[in-house]
């Protein structure tokens, strides 16, 4: 039975953490809880609910900045930006449906703490690359800040990077400032149907080598495409172009010519193009339908040219379905249920091809018993523990969420 603390401002977050410190209690940090099923199950006594820290504090489109309280719904921020012709260029994935929850229920603080990103990772980076500044409460119960509200800043250590992807294990973000960017005027997708995985990775590599500024390169093998209701039994290799209309038209022609040698080339304009990339972003083919919910899902990053080989190694020994993003550099793998969610065979393939694997979807009991984040070399593991110690010496904030003892 866990109790919930729901502070209404930064000061109350300090009070909550100090109180937990005095009791030796551990807190599970949540915004709206949309990614609660990711990571090792919380070993906490109380929930620190940050969703009441809500509201945009500053938005200056011409300066490309927005500040908001960390619990502000992402959807609210995205709507505000869209009204000014801007967007979050890091294209944060909506994990809801993949994890069997509601869609569009995350907060900006959660998006940053989990370092979310999407297909545009290859062109515009991840949340880390757009995180300009923050105020947070450390596990020491102290409010501290880092960064600023300008887009270019090297004053002191870049703690924004450290917070991005720390999953609430170092500090509770209370206020965040991010970079906003113009939303491309239009987009189109150049599509090659029927390629096998290895050829598709070669095609995507060739596309990335053109000067067409490809902002998304994904491959859905026939099975994955079929699950998403796409492809009519064929695989789909998707290449996205974004920008002003004359530029997209010009690049579309150039890219189609470059892809001709690989197979039959088609083009999807808006709004279908937008829909396709939403499906890639949210890994829609692997969403938790009643049939698929029990099947573990892995997110594997690797050198793009090794993506197909890595997937082949896994598929050779397991019932695996895959989906490629980032021109092969991101491989989503859905396996049949098993005792370790396939950890051993996935990690074997990753150690052969290079990269890192993270278990995104699995029952809590498996996530408690298996490494969810990639196991670390001793040197890096030691460094990670010492960093945690520096921010949260008593292990009050999300202890064990990433690794046991962190």
């Amino acid at each position, binding site marked *: 039975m866990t109790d919930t603390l729901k*502070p*209404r401002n930064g000061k109350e977050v300090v*009070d909550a953490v100090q109180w937990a410190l*005095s009791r030796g209690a551990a807190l599970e940090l949540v915004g709206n809880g949309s990614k609660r099923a990711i990571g090792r199950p919380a070993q906490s006594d109380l929930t620190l*609910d940050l969703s009441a820290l809500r509201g945009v504090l500053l938005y200056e*489109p011409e*300066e490309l900045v927005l500040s908001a309280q960390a619990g502000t719904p992402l959807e609210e921020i995205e709507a505000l930006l869209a009204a000014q012709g801007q967007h979050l260029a890091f294209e944060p994935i909506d994990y809801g449906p993949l994890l069997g929850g509601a869609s569009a229920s995350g907060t900006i603080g959660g998006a940053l703490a989990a*370092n979310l990103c999407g297909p545009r*990772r290859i062109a515009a*980076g991840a949340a*880390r*690359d757009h995180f300009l500044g923050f105020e947070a409460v450390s596990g020491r119960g102290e409010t*501290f*800040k*880092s960064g600023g*509200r*300008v*887009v*270019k*800043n*090297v*004053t*002191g*250590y870049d*703690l924004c*990077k*450290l917070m*991005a*992807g720390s999953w609430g294990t*170092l500090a509770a973000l209370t206020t965040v400032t991010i970079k906003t960017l*113009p939303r491309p005027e239009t987009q189109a997708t150049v599509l090659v149907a029927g390629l096998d995985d290895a050829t598709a990775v070669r095609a995507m590599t060739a596309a*990335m*080598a*053109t*000067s067409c500024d490809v902002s998304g390169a994904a491959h859905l093998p026939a099975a994955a495409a079929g699950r998403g209701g796409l492809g009519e039994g064929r695989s789909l290799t998707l290449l996205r172009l974004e*920008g002003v209309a*004359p*530029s997209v038209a010009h*690049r579309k022609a150039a890219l189609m010519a470059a892809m001709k040698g690989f197979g039959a080339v088609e083009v999807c304009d808006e709004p279908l193009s937008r829909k396709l990339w939403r499906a890639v972003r949210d890994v829609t083919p692997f969403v938790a339908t009643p049939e698929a919910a029990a099947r573990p899902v892995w997110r594997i*990053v*690797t*050198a*793009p040219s090794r993506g197909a080989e890595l997937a082949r190694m896994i598929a050779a020994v397991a019932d695996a379905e895959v989906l490629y993003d980032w021109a092969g550099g991101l491989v989503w793998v859905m396996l049949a249920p098993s005792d370790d969610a396939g950890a051993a065979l996935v990690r074997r393939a990753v150690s052969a091809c*290079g*990269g*890192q694997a993270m278990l995104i979807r699995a029952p809590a009991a498996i996530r408690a018993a298996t490494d969810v*984040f990639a196991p*670390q*070399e001793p*040197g*890096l593991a030691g*460094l*990670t523990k*010492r*960093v945690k*110690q*520096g*921010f949260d*010496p*008593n292990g009050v904030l999300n202890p064990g969420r990433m690794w046991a003892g962190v």
Partner: protein
Amino acid sequence: MVAMPEPDRAVLARRDRIVKALSAIVPGEGVIASEAAMRPFESDGLTAYRCLPMVVVLPSTTDQVARILAYCHREGIKVVPRGAGTSLSGGALPLADGVLLGMAKFNRIREIDYDNRVVVAEPGVTNLAVTQAVESSGYYYAPDPSSQIACTIGGNVAENSGGVHCLKYGMTTNNVLGCEIVLITGEVVRLGGKHVDAGGYDLLGVINGSEGLLGVVTEVTVRILRKPETARAALIGFASSEDAGECVGKIIGAGIIPGGMEMMDRPAIHAVEEFVHAGYPLDVEALLIVELDGPQAEVDHLVARVEAIAASCRAVSCRVSTSEQERLLFWAGRKAAFPAVGRISPDYFCMDGTIPRARLPQVLARMRELSEHYRLRVANVFHAGDGNLHPLILYDANAGELERAEAFGADILRLCVEVGGVLTGEHGVGVEKRDLMPTMFSEVDLAQQQRLKCAFDEKGLLNPGKVFPTLHRCAELGRMHVHAGKLAFPDIPRF
């Protein structure tokens, strides 16, 4: 002048032994101990500060770096890493009781991988050499600090260097995928690689911009980009900096992120034009260079839109480059701004604050007042797109103007913070801005940053005296006072 930590006499007394031990690790000419031979290392790009190191060591392998650092860690000896020594903030300023660890011999490109669009380079490779290695295949490395001919990629990581293209293409941190680093203990740690966004704390993101205080970089993996099909630049003159600032805001407001967007004020325009003869108009108060890059169709489309926006902002002149030669000439002036100012003044300081761009007119007006107050001239070049100011303060050290120039610079940076900006956009804190850190950060903020330092370097041996105005012991920083008692806020909603 910013004071450096007092040299440790006990360490200096052991100098001969230390030199011998280092020579055993790096045989031959890898250890420099004579005063004359160490002289070239006594300062970096912040030439107002000079100090001879205790000894210079130039390793050429990761193993040597690891053994040097492990030795210094064991013996309690300070270490200052150095790339090409082009830091403008004194990041590579030696310490009298410290080992200067020069990385210049790490000068090989280890791998060019076009399929994964990355280059793996040793840290002593120059920034420009990375681009040169791949340009025949149509690629380039995006961050381009003005010192790119000389500055090294390892130094770029340490300083998180920017350049004129970083509004669109990001700083070093956005373009580095992996690093091999050696900790002060001698442990070798690999962060990232050819893949992006590995799980775990983003220590790669922390190493970028850590100014040599956390670890020594021994290998860097950077992403390379396909060269844009074409680029054109517009040279736009304005009768006031307000008009120029409005134009910049409207360009971005219209959804255009130019490849580069630079502003110069009147003194900078005049200094540059006399030096380079780039054809800059001399009768304007502010000059913008706006560069659009990408496919031809896109560039032509956007150039037309930028011209229309400029006209709506009362531009008094507007020239768009019609050839590659003309585009490069437009840039030649801006790129020569520092030496051009160096020509008209015996010494100059280059400042590096960032401000919310809308505050530019106010900041420039205040700077003019300060210029009169300190009786020193100032010329401004400005990365207009991202609000990064480079005021150049002209002074003559031989005429005793150094202290006044430093005070002027400090006032400018305080002003930047006051209007919502920061102390440094791309040059780093180093020695130069160290004592101004409390204008931006509270004691708690700085202590938390130093706790990160403790995780990497508990004894505080790597580049001490830089970035942080006050050095605290890690044991002291680690102490925590837990307030005993009950929930301090009984009225907090609980469910």
